[in-house]
């Protein structure tokens, strides 16, 4: 089965290492030097007020945003944005290598509407990674079963509910056999009654030992699932720790944020 993450490489190093990552959009400095590490097999929750840069951090990990400075490493692939290679080919290759270490789940699923569920899952493995359709399909069926969508292989995304679509999105990310799964507010676009089924699937992933990076507003969920919590504010990591941070925050900003969120929830 392919539903388990890749093995430990016997290294004492963290699986993910981010150092000094900075990014500005025009005049607006969004990230001001982000540093953190994440261990293999752990779930990291990124929290923070809107505009704090948590989504930008996530998108820097697979270079959907190109940082202006800093380094990003996932397993054996790293890119130093302070000195990107001049050669375009080489630069492309480095970024592609880093990108191939992760799979991404989007806030609004971004499934390919013109392809069936099975085709959505197989697109990357077959078209990009060059695996055989038979092998990829066998894996895809296993993944669909895991996210509770066995039998919906031939449906088009438009024929599924929002929660089902997001679970296909998760399966599509897993189908790439990534070393890290990046989840960008995976439940924010869902109707409240559909949130539970998606969170359930993500919890399962964490228990199976997938390395997860999750941007979320669901504080309770983060407390349940996360091994590590990063609280972002003003483009820096304001507080970092275990899930207990969420019950007993040390910094004022974190306290304010949590009290607001919990009061609203």
């Amino acid at each position, binding site marked *: 089965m392919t539903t388990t993450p890749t093995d430990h490489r016997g290294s004492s190093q963290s699986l993910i290492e981010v150092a000094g990552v900075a990014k500005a959009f025009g005049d607006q400095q969004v990230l001001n030097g982000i540093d953190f590490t994440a261990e293999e097999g752990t779930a990291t929750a990124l929290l923070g007020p809107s505009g704090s840069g948590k989504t930008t951090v996530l998108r820097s990990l697979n270079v959907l945003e190109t940082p202006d400075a800093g380094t990003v490493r996932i397993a054996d692939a790293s890119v130093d944005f302070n000195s990107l290679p001049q050669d375009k080919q080489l630069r*492309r290759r480095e970024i592609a*290598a880093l*990108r*191939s270490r992760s799979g991404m789940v989007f806030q609004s699923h971004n499934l*390919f509407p013109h392809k069936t569920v099975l085709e959505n899952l197989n*697109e*990357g493995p077959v078209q990009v990674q060059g695996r055989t359709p038979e092998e990829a399909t066998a894996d895809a069926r296993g993944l669909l079963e895991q996210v509770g969508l066995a039998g919906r292989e031939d449906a088009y995304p438009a024929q599924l509910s929002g929660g089902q679509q997001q679970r296909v999105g998760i399966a599509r990310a897993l189908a790439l056999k990534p070393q890290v799964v990046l989840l960008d507010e995976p439940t924010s676009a869902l109707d409240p009654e559909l949130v539970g089924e998606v969170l359930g699937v993500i919890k399962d992933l964490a228990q199976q030992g997938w390395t997860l990076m999750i941007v979320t507003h669901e504080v309770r969920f983060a407390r349940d699932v996360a091994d590590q919590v990063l609280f972002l504010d003003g483009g820096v990591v304001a507080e970092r720790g275990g899930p207990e941070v969420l019950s007993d925050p040390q910094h004022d900003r974190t306290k304010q944020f949590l009290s607001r969120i919990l009061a609203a929830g």
Partner: protein
Amino acid sequence: MPGSSPAPSPGRSPIYSEPVELRKGRRPSTRWLVVLILAPLVLLGVLATSPAQAASAADGDGQRVVRVGTEGTYPPFTYVDPRTSQLTGYDIEVVEAVAQEAGWKLKFVQSPFDAIFPALDAKRIDVVANQVTINPEREARYLFTKPYTYSHGVIVTAADTKGITTLADLKGRTTAQSETSNWAQVARDAGAKVRSVEGFAQAAELLVQGRVDAIVNDNIAVLDYLASTGSKDIKITGEAGDEVSKQALAFRKSDPALRDEANDALEKLRDDGTLSNISEKYFKADVSVPDSGELELEGSDTRSTPEVVRETAWPMLRGLVVGTIPLTVICFVVGMLIALAAALARMSANPLLRNPARFYISVIRGTPLLVQLFIVFYGLPQIGLKIPSYPAAIIALSLNVGGYAAEIIRSSILSVPRGQFEAATTIGMPYAQSMRRIILPQAARIAVPPLSNTLLSLIKDTSLASVVLVPELLHEAQVAAASSQQYLPLYIFAALYYWVVCWLVSLAQNRLEGRLERFAV
């Protein structure tokens, strides 16, 4: 991790992709684009250099091929005989007799009169056989043979018009003339305003409808019209001056040998009576000598309306099948390739791609198709780029479709949510692959309705190809209308053909949309 060799996951091949700055939109990779842009250009280049015949080339038998420019819509001199669908008439038979005498092989090229001299200049034809009247302006530019027709100008008005009987009466009046004919000059010199028409039959129609006051034309053409139509609506009211006008074959200044051969041949034909026999056949008089006496014409086309429509239905269908439809299909396919390349170049981050694409789209959308056709067909030969009719029409129409469709394709690509491109990127797809497999299939669905409009326009725009001498549907209708003067039924019939084709296309569009709807969000 510098130094350590990459340890790829099992079964994973290295993945290369464009470091796109997604916030700025989807930016095409340059190398891929260059290929895409070159492809249609090469295609057009092949078209442009394909079977362009050299002027007066020799064919396999060593016979000289001489291309004759003629209207085919000016009975009884040059027209398509409704009974045989063959080009015939006094001028046609004269030039055929000349060819036999001189040992030429003839190739007829039909063209509106106003396009004939440009065609001669552009070396698309070698001689004009179309009752070309010799005058000083033309003699300065072209070589003429000795005359083979002597005629005189007459003034024609509607039956109930009074008081226009001499050239002096034309002052301040409006006449209908072929713009570049000598009769237009005669009318202008008399102080008349000139409305430009294609051929005498059209002029006569304007006169009958009361849109112009008079026509100045050759007496023979007018007599033929009256005999053919039996029309009581127009009449000859007087002579347009007392000068006898002389008509002859016209050649380029650079072709004196050809002209001399024609002169020798005409001389022989005059001596052996052939010329006068041809004239007798058409006019019951000898118009090849200065004083022909009384003319008596039977009329070149005396068919009834149902006959005309019935006998034209087939040539029009042929024009549709061999002209309109292939032209549409080829131009649409080539145009789509150009459009895709232009759309992607227009979105490129590289100004060397983006700016030319912008310029191209702007020029195509900002100039009339007719002007574009004229530039390709009549303009380019003046800088040495001679393109035959059919390829010229294909080039102009394809470039036109390409310019319009480029904007449709561009906006369709931009209307695919950016997340689709991001999703493709995160599963490792490089730019070209994302376009091909993810973005374009979705853009295609959005583009179907507007591109169908482009296709429908193109079907109708192919009718403009008749002005660059492509024998398509409308051209056949024009030829038949000119000889029979049955405008309304013939043009309605032509419209019907176009409508049926367009209707079929919109049926296909509905089916296609239905198929693409199945994954609609």
